[in-house]
């Protein structure tokens, strides 16, 4: 078993940050917060995956980040290209340049697993999305196993595990004095060469504490529940905000618009913008002419659950939900996907 | 999608009122480059008969369907040019005006600054006219009865005039009697005749 001491790891990370883009969990936001507020987001700084300049900025002691790893592969907003007027008065198109090679350090196994869904959607059919493809290609994932399952996590119920190495290039598992290192892929191998790994015999890996596992609804149960009044009852509470889909590692809906903007120099340019969208937004699914098959709040809410557990598995043969539990924690009205799943699973198959 | 937007831009020299401070030719050249502009011209007095005819001509011959005139204040000639559009068969609300006389040439000394500002205002008007929509006035019936409030001499005079013309008048007086101040007057100047 390979091993790296904490100090060596820090030194390696500091070096990496010099050479390429290093993304890692880091605490963001002002430290002073409303003490004891009921809003979990207002309890002090929150941890995000952000570009860091060295190991000192990395948050080591975190549960899960406020936003998933998705924002680094499918940014919240990206300009795909711009059009401006050239010196001869003709339109010139500038395609957006993409990032340098990146190391994504500290990604949780569930977040990495979420990329499977994004891969399936963005790369799984022709033409592949070049922006996504390049980011994916350029990035080496160094996972950091969860020492335990956190409050609201349920990865073990959806086929994952807090220390799963399936979707990362390298996985680090914290042990006494440092980290056990599993090099998973060739890409990981290339990166690991510079790490200065030691080989330690008989290293014992800790067993992460798991949350109670529960059974998921069957396809029949999903099918039979589509028109159930149950969705109205859950929807009663829903605020129709977008928190659940924006914190989710597997949500990938986006909107594209061409916008005209004026530069500080007073020139007008047109840019094509891609930004996250959410099935929970009121204008999601509005079609030209005004028709909207998801006009009602409960229809949109239902869509989110079906998307994860019915549409994605069928359309992309991937698990739509990785059980990270972010939506559970963040939902301001306590719509708990685990509760929904268990409610449905309890039903008699039609 | 609706018809293609074809904008005609007319820069007025206003004799030398505009031309002395604004490089009209440069503004015309600038306007010509703007999207959807099919024709840009300058003229000594756009509001004059030949100036108006030019616009009508362009509407008929070049298919211009939106018009921008850069000249004096719209408070002066907006109605004039709207009528030109109407006469040429396009909706008068497809018209926009840039005030490059009162707001530019008359208040700016530096010619290049004035020309720059004129371009801004023309650009603004062209952008605006692209969004303008045809509008149509409508008519309403007038009830043939009048209300006169106050039964002093003014109210009485107005009521009698209207009543004599054959229309019904309601004369409302706050006091128990009509007459107002006038009834209190004894003699009126300068003829010193009786008032009641």
């Amino acid at each position, binding site marked *: 078993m390979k091993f790296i001491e904490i100090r060596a790891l820090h030194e390696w990370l500091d070096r990496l940050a010099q050479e390429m883009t290093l993304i890692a969990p880091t605490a963001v*936001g002002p430290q002073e917060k*409303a003490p004891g*507020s009921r809003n979990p987001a*207002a309890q002090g700084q929150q941890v995000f995956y952000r570009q860091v300049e060295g190991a000192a900025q990395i948050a080591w002691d975190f549960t899960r980040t*406020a936003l998933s790893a998705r924002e680094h592969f499918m940014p919240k907003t990206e300009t795909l290209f711009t059009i401006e007027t050239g010196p001869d008065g003709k339109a010139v198109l500038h395609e957006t340049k993409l990032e340098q090679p990146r190391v994504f350090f500290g990604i949780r196994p569930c977040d990495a697993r979420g990329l499977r869904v994004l891969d399936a959607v963005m790369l799984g059919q022709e033409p592949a999305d070049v922006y996504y493809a390049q980011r994916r290609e350029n990035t080496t994932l160094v996972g950091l196993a969860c020492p335990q399952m956190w409050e609201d996590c349920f990865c073990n119920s959806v086929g994952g595990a807090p220390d799963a190495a399936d979707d990362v290039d390298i996985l680090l598992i914290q042990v006494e004095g440092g980290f056990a290192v599993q090099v998973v892929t060739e890409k990981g191998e290339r990166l690991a060469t510079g790490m200065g790994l030691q080989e330690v015999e008989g290293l014992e890996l800790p067993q992460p504490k798991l949350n109670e596992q529960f059974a998921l609804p069957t396809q029949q149960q999903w099918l039979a529940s589509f028109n159930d009044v149950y969705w109205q009852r859950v929807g009663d509470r829903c*605020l129709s905000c977008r928190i659940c889909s924006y914190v989710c590692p597997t949500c990938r809906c986006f909107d594209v*618009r061409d916008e005209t903007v004026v530069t500080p120099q007073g020139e007008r340019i047109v840019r094509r913008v891609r930004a996250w969208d959410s099935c929970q937004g009121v204008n999601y699914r509005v079609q030209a002419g005004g028709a909207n098959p998801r006009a009602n709040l409960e229809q949109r809410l239902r869509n989110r659950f079906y998307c994860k557990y019915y549409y994605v598995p069928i359309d992309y043969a991937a698990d739509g939900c990785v059980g990270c539990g972010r939506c559970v924690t963040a939902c*301001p009205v306590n719509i708990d996907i685990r509760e929904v799943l268990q409610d449905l699973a309890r039903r008699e198959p039609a | 999608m609706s018809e293609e937007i074809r904008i005609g831009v007319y820069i007025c020299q206003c004799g030398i009122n505009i031309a002395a401070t604004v490089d009209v030719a440069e503004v015309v050249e600038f306007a010509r480059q703007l999207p959807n502009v099919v024709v840009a011209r300058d003229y000594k007095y756009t509001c004059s008969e030949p100036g108006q005819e030019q616009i009508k001509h362009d509407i008929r011959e070049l298919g211009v369907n939106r018009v921008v005139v850069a000249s004096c204040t719209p408070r002066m000639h907006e109605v004039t040019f709207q009528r030109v559009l109407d006469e040429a068969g396009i909706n008068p609300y497809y018209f926009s005006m840039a005030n490059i006389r009162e707001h530019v040439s008359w208040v700016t000394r530096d010619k290049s600054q004035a020309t720059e500002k004129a371009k801004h205002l023309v650009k603004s008007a062209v952008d605006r006219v692209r969004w303008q929509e045809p509008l149509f006035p409508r008519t309403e019936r007038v009830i043939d009865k009048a209300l006169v409030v106050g039964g002093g001499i003014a109210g009485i005079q107005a009521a009698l005039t209207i009543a004599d013309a054959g229309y019904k008048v309601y004369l409302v007086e706050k006091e128990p009697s009509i007459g107002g101040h006038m009834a209190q007057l004894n003699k009126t100047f300068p003829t010193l005749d009786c008032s009641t």
Partner: protein
Amino acid sequence: MIEDIRALARELLEKGAVECVIGYEVGPTGRVRPAFVYEPGEVERLIFDGRCDQNLVTYLTRRNKPRKKGEEVPTTAVVVKPCDARSLRVLLNEHQVQRDKVYIIGVACPGMQNADGTPELRCTRCDQRVPLLYDALCGEPPEVPTVRDAYEDVQQIEALPLEERLAYWLGELDRCIRCYACRQACPTCFCSVCEAERDDSLWVGIADRIPEKAFFHIIRAFHQAGRCTECNACEAVCPMGIPLSLINRKIAKDVAQMMGGYRAGESDEPTPLVTMLTGEEAIDEIH
């Protein structure tokens, strides 16, 4: 108090006086959340204590529409704290809720508590313990000293130099992810299409950048002028922990100061921003 609420809820549902009672319940993981009770047998789910800080009035706007065309608007009972009652008054003033379609279960409010049991900040500056309007009042008004809200939180920001204020807000707005939870949780944000989400990007586009976010938050706050009742729902739901109440409270403070002490939701008077001058204004800053 909770027994009063349950008994009342049961009575209303049994009589068929209301279709649904909106109150609070404890979810399976122990979190307090809004409860929608349709059956008299389910009223035992209802609870009320210092954790029930959500503003349930938010839900009334959407219930004010008939389910199907031609159907009657259903009557809903709702548990309303004094702060929520002010929101409700704004909704009534703005025709978003019909008074006869809502049964107001007022609660004499003990004040809400934080997770650690300390009183919520906003409750320490609240001077109402009984809602301004209700159909039935549950609970005894607690003896709480009257506190005058001095807006000390807002004053702290006001006291910062301009550049620090800008830096502060840029830092906060940077985290905003435009999830619109603030807007959705706000009882007085009820536009059918938000200006920030227009299809044609007239004011702002879809991008998640500072100008768009600044526009959204400034305009949202501005639209709340004379309407925000400082219920704090926006801040309570923000997943990024942005102190949104500081913006809304700033507006509320200025409206009161400039427009004759106006406070939203305390009367039937509409927001002074849409009415003529009354002569009581203290607007000192023309230019």
